[in-house]
């Protein structure tokens, strides 16, 4: 029950701050859309949530109208449907990327921190190396080698992303390791595994969770950015925000909406995610909990 009070307090602090509350709501909205896309897209007027429906009879982008809320983009794709459908794709991949990265990162980071010494050194050097290449070019290279589909792309992003979490988790774990309660547990005969699972990981999770929420926005951006510069050419009709923008690129000047709507969709999500992340960070910061 004490724990329950804790969650309640967290939420209360979160909602005391209007912006973070708004962030939360928007993010929930996006997730909602993604789910509906997956199960019953017709509800929100999407004919096919898994593939764009081109209309080659008039491929030239049409301005927004009643029958095309966001107008159309080349080749005659209804932008509204495409964008709504794309939300599912982008959200799904971003979540997978972040969670996979975080999982690997936490595992490696915590273990390294606990059994410090040689293993730790090695890990630090490896992450150093991974972090020594800016993620975008690196992702390009890896993705290129793996192939230019979205799955390969997200795998590439995981490979690029996990060191960040490893670093972060390690830092957290090291500071937690210093706490007397870890030593007390050792003194009362709790084994290493017990200490890691019972004491370190639970205490690491919270800050990493905050980090995740702060990263999601960035990941969505990066993902879209890579598709924008020509990944995802494997499946030309897959609805994806970055790809939509790059498809619209040639028409940007004559038909601005083709780039504006997909972009705004990304922007709103990223902003909401960051607001939420900030709110969470404040809410979980012990200084604000008293």
């Amino acid at each position, binding site marked *: 029950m004490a*724990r329950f009070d804790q969650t309640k307090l967290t939420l209360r602090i979160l909602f005391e701050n209007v912006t973070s509350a708004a962030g939360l709501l928007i993010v929930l909205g996006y997730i909602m859309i993604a789910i509906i896309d997956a199960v019953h897209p017709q509800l929100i007027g999407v004919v096919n949530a898994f593939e764009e429906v081109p209309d080659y009879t008039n491929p030239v982008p049409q301005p927004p109208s009643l029958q095309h809320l966001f107008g159309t983009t080349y080749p005659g794709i209804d932008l509204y449907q495409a964008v709504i459908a794309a939300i599912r794709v982008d959200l799904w991949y971003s979540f997978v990327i972040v969670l996979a990265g975080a999982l690997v990162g936490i595992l490696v980071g915590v273990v390294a921190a606990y059994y410090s010494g040689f293993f730790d050194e090695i890990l630090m050097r490896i992450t150093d190396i991974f972090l020594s290449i800016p993620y975008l070019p690196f992702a390009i290279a890896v993705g290129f080698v793996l192939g230019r589909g979205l799955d390969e792309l997200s795998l590439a992003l995981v490979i690029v992303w996990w060191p960040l979490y490893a670093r972060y988790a390690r830092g957290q774990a090291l500071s937690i390791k210093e706490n007397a309660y870890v*030593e007390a*547990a050792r*003194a009362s005969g709790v084994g290493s595994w017990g200490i890691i699972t019972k004491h370190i990981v639970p205490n690491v999770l919270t800050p990493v969770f905050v980090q995740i929420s702060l990263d999601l926005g960035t990941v969505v951006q990066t993902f879209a950015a890579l598709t924008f510069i020509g990944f995802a050419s494997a499946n030309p009709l897959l609805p994806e925000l970055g790809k939509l923008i790059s498809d619209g690129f040639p028409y940007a000047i004559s038909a601005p909406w083709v780039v504006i709507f997909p972009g705004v969709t990304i922007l709103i999500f990223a902003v909401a995610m960051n607001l939420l992340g900030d709110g969470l960070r404040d809410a979980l910061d012990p200084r604000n909990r008293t």
Partner: protein
Amino acid sequence: MKSEVDPAKEQRVLLQTENLSKLFPVKGDKVIGGTKYVHAVDEADVTISENEVVGLVGESGCGKTTLGRLVLRLMEPSKGTAFFLIPRSSLDRYRSVPVGSKEARTIEKEYSIYRFDRRKMKEFRKNTQIVFQDPFSSLDPHMTIRAIVAEPMKAHHYRPKNEIDTKVSKLLEECGLGEQFLEKLPHELSGGQRQRVAIARALAMSPRLIVLDEPTSALDVSVQAQILNLLKRFKSELGLSFLFISHHLAVVRQMSDEIYVMYAGQIVERGETEAVFNSPAHPYTIALMSAIPVPDPTTKREKILLKGEIPDLVRPPGGCRFHPRCPSALGNCGWSPEEVIASLSEVLASSGLPSVSEALKSRDCRVIDGQTFEAHVGESLDESKTESIRRVVAEKRDNQSHFALRAVKEITSQSDTTGATIRVSLTMSLVPKFTGLDKRHFVACNLFPPGSAGRDGSHEFGGVEPPVRGEQH
């Protein structure tokens, strides 16, 4: 021969450390390597018997906390060992045989906590516990009080399982915390309450030895009183032994039967609490006691103010580590040539011999060995000049800031074409060994050389060696 006694029956020492030492590596200031070592604990011999409270006092960084960690094997020692529940006979045997000999190793294998195998280690963990100073970092913020207290029992597969909960609430009850605390999280408790929880956790597996690492330093006076009384009660009721670590002498006096005074990683005085408090022998102990602020404005007893600060344990002072601050240091307390040069050049500067002092400061003042150094002076030094130097040394040596001069044995000088060379030789320095002042009071200080008469004059205990290794031979 004790060895005939059946070890099962004969009385055992609960915990005995032998030359226990710990060095911490610190990154040197070279580009590669150059690792230096902090001499945190140096050759500590501590004896803890059943149902005894041993106090360990000293200032921060004196190594008392490290020692506390070592005896629970929360860290591995760099040297020496510690025995748990070792029979007297084996202990004496161990001391009589050379280190590393086959027999010594067999004894270590049997009783040394650092050689324990998995099973023995688990047993040891059951029998020992620790309570930390900081009541805020010593409880996992994510666990309820119930879980925290139950943790040791779970770790040791306490049977029967279903009794764990009742045991937990009983323990908390014992420590003066009611049912309503069971489901609380640590941050909802006050410092005193947290410390009570920590104690309850320590008692969970009814251990024999609890290390109390500054258990009340973070608490207010009134709360401290409550905790101390609680601990006293447990000691008498449960027959526990405590290793009570604290910088607060008054508290230690209240709690412990025997105390060890540590300075800069070494134990300088040990003995029965009352004996040590009533007649402290080591200059450091005396200073430490005089420094305690007394809550009574009427008694204005003069204090012994120590100059300087606790030395850097990366390069601890030679001889007696306390000598640079000691208000009654002797010539043989381990003054290094550098120390002597420094204060010699200073006194000479202010007493009309600046040239010599400059020469001492200058680079061509070379230390020949630990006991001699010589410097080349620009002008010639006739015997009278040398004599005057000797006079200066003689009169300044009793000024506390120039005790280093006490180490000066003789000063010679020989003139040559370019000037003269002054040569100073120092008295042989002596590492203090433990000396018995009476049956239960030992001090390691050159004021009490081994074999000297006990302070009370009675030769009966004169120079009694304490029953521990390091000081034999």
